[in-house]
């Protein structure tokens, strides 16, 4: 251990700890802009400067390792002045129009300026020319608000392994963005929105659908229904001051009713449905391989995460046959709302409007994919992020925290705990195992409280193996088979896993991939800011939601069983094939 002194108090830290980490450990706040947890420090923004006794210049706390007996001061006049100067300089070049900016509630630059007591801007720099990019369905970029901290560059290249954004040019005219300052649709971007999730200012955000949704809610000729993704119920509360992980499912339902939606439904319902379709698909593939001894694409990959789908279409087209043909729960819901449900309430698909609330920006892209019109019209019309829903709730003047708990509507509103855990990494796999094991053996998944511990948590790639014993006659060919599964989240981790599979270094039967670190609970549309501590709290909230339900297995969801009995027939049957399954298209990278 190394002994340092911070602001007069002794702190002992492990070797290689940076000053920033040491300060955080001691509960001392040092502001940061360019630094991103778990990534190499850039040392670029200089807002984290501290005074180290014996050093001539101020040091960047994020990039300076502690040395034994180091004496550090984080709040001297010199430090405060220097930080203030950095922020003033940023503001002088910044197209600040906070009143009209969509970050006004949670802008880090604005907060930093307030915290540091910036009261006026001494310099008047040349402002960068505006360069709006609305080329993609998922994101808007406004370069005039960019403070060039490069967090988006780090997340896109190091965390997601894509590299759509890089500094272009040099000096004052540097622009952070796609090649040759082109628009985002000109490069291979998967629309995950992780760049928007880490941006400290209003330079990258979701492509807003708020106005469209208000317009639809005002249109008396339309029946507007809403579906809510599993991951938002453990995060939406953050936008109203509640701690991360607070479960607000009931309040969310009440808020959506007050906003004027005709019916409030659950994407969880189609998550349960996905388990039945995808589970059957997996068992069918295994049967083809083991009984018929025919060639079939294994491992099978989950297909609920649209960023991952686009990633595979760009970078791993050889694995497209391995992707489950199941649409994502969002798209299954859209297709059913405009057929099954529309018929029940005697409306035509054209008279229905389906709005989704998602933790995700890539879902906006997914809803616009040309093939997503199984009902004859666009299956999902508008996608709001968790952040956008929070904004609409505020716009409507609803006192969210005072709302009573509402209940989802039927027939697309009931869900199991297995559907809840679609929200986090490992959850889809666990949900699938709960059902598949029971189908094959007639017994409950033999793990503690239905949780497969090995695939929980924030490790980048996780795996588990399960030997199948005591099969029912229909599935006896699986007797004694060791089912191997893997789970990855974050596309950088996924790339590493795919390379191992490609090179034959690892073999699995089933692989779950989620685009965003931590899974959907860490999605690009969630309340900012998301770090690992927030991810873990949201995950804990989701597991609590699961454990709080009696119904914890998808195949026991009565509304899903009714849907099969009344409308779909059997999993993978003809209607399912038409409405719930899809295909993929190879894409050229730049």
């Amino acid at each position: 251990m190394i002994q340092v002194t911070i602001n007069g108090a002794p702190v002992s830290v492990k070797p290689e700890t940076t000053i920033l980490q040491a300060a955080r450990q001691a509960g001392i706040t040092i502001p940061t802009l360019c630094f991103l947890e778990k990534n190499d420090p850039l040392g670029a923004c200089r807002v984290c400067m501290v005074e180290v006794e014996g050093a001539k210049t101020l040091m960047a706390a994020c990039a300076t390792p502690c040395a034994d007996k180091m004496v550090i001061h984080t709040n001297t006049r010199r430090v405060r002045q220097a930080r203030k100067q950095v922020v003033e300089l940023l503001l002088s070049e910044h197209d600040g129009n906070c009143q009209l900016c969509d970050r006004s509630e949670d802008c880090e630059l604005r907060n930093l300026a307030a915290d540091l007591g910036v009261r006026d801007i001494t310099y008047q720099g040349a402002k960068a020319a505006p360069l709006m990019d609305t080329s993609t369905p998922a994101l808007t970029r406004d370069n005039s608000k960019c403070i060039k901290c490069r967090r988006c560059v780090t997340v896109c290249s190091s965390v997601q392994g894509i590299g759509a954004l890089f500094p272009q040019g040099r000096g004052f005219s540097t622009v952070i963005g796609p090649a040759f300052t082109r628009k985002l649709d000109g490069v291979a971007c998967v629309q995950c929105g992780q760049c928007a999730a880490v941006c400290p200012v209003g330079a990258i955000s979701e492509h807003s659908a708020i106005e469209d949704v208000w317009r639809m809610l005002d249109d008396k000729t339309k029946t507007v229904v809403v579906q809510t993704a599993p991951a938002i119920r453990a995060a939406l509360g953050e936008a109203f001051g509640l701690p991360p992980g607070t479960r607000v499912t009931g309040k969310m339902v009440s808020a959506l009713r007050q906003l004027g939606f005709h019916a409030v439904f659950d994407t969880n319902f189609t998550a349960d449905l996905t388990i039945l379709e995808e589970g059957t698909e997996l068992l069918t593939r295994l049967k083809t391989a083991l009984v018929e001894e025919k060639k079939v694409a294994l491992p099978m990959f989950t297909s609920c995460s649209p960023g991952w789908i686009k990633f595979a279409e760009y970078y791993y087209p050889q694995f497209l046959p391995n992707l489950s043909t199941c649409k994502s729960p969002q798209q299954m819901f859209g297709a059913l709302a405009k057929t099954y449900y529309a018929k029940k309430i005697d409306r035509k698909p054209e008279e229905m409007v389906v709005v989704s609330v998602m933790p995700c920006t890539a879902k906006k892209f997914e809803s616009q994919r040309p093939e997503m019109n199984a009902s004859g019209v666009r299956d999902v019309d508008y996608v709001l992020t968790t952040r956008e829903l929070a904004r609409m709730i505020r716009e409507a003047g609803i006192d969210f925290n005072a709302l009573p708990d509402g209940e989802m509507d039927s027939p697309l509103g009931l869900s199991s705990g297995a559907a809840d855990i679609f929200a986090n990494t490992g959850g889809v796999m666990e949900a699938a195992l709960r059902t598949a094991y029971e189908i094959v053996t007639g017994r409950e998944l033999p793990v503690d409280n239905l949780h497969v511990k090995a695939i929980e948590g924030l490790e980048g790639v996780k795996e588990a193996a399960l030997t199948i014993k005591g099969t029912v006659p229909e599935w006896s060919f699986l007797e004694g088979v060791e089912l191997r599964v893997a789970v990855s989240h974050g596309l950088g981790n996924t790339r590493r896993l795919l390379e191992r599979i490609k090179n034959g270094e690892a073999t699995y039967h089933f692989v779950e991939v989620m685009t965003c670190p931590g899974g959907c609970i860490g999605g690009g549309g969630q309340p900012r800011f998301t770090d690992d501590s927030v991810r873990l709290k949201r995950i804990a909230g989701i597991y609590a939601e699961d454990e709080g339900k009696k119904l914890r297995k998808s195949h026991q969801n009565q509304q899903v069983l009714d849907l099969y009995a009344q409308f779909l027939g059997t999993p993978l049957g003809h209607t399912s094939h038409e409405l719930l399954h899809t295909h993929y298209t190879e894409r050229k990278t730049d």
Partner: protein
Amino acid sequence: MSDTTGNCCCGNCSLTEAQIIEELEPMLQEYASKPGGVIPALQIAQTRLGYLPEEVIKRIAHLFGKPYSEVAGVVTFYSFFSTVPRGTYLIRVCLGTACYVRGGNELLQALKHKLGIDVGETTADRLFSLGVGRCFGACGMAPVLMVNDDLHQRVKATKVGEILESYRAQAATQAEKEAVKA
């Protein structure tokens, strides 16, 4: 942007850009295995082609396993890389102090107007590219401009048309000669 039918910049051969790019491939591949090889690879391509067409930048990004945006970032960082083709004649107007005060800027404006291009651009017929310089060491004869290696002194804005015409004529004779040879 992605016109690959143009000819090699050396003026002595008639390889198409696509052929040159093909020729370059093995050399670029060799660099791809070296750390820090991106910049030399870009330099080689630019020397051979006179500029960096989009396909070549993409090709290099692929060979090096780097994102296109990252390689584009390198290209835009260094001023010696150019993504527009060089014309046969590179015109550089001196904007050093002496030339500037004696009408260098008017010269530049006149050229922009006559050629219909901005600084850093090339005419559609790939005959002329426009650039600026900071003193060619001929301040006594300001304002000056260079066309490739020829120095033109005490140029008046009204005369730039004549200068351009003389190079157009030169290019035409050159083309005729080549046609005869062929």
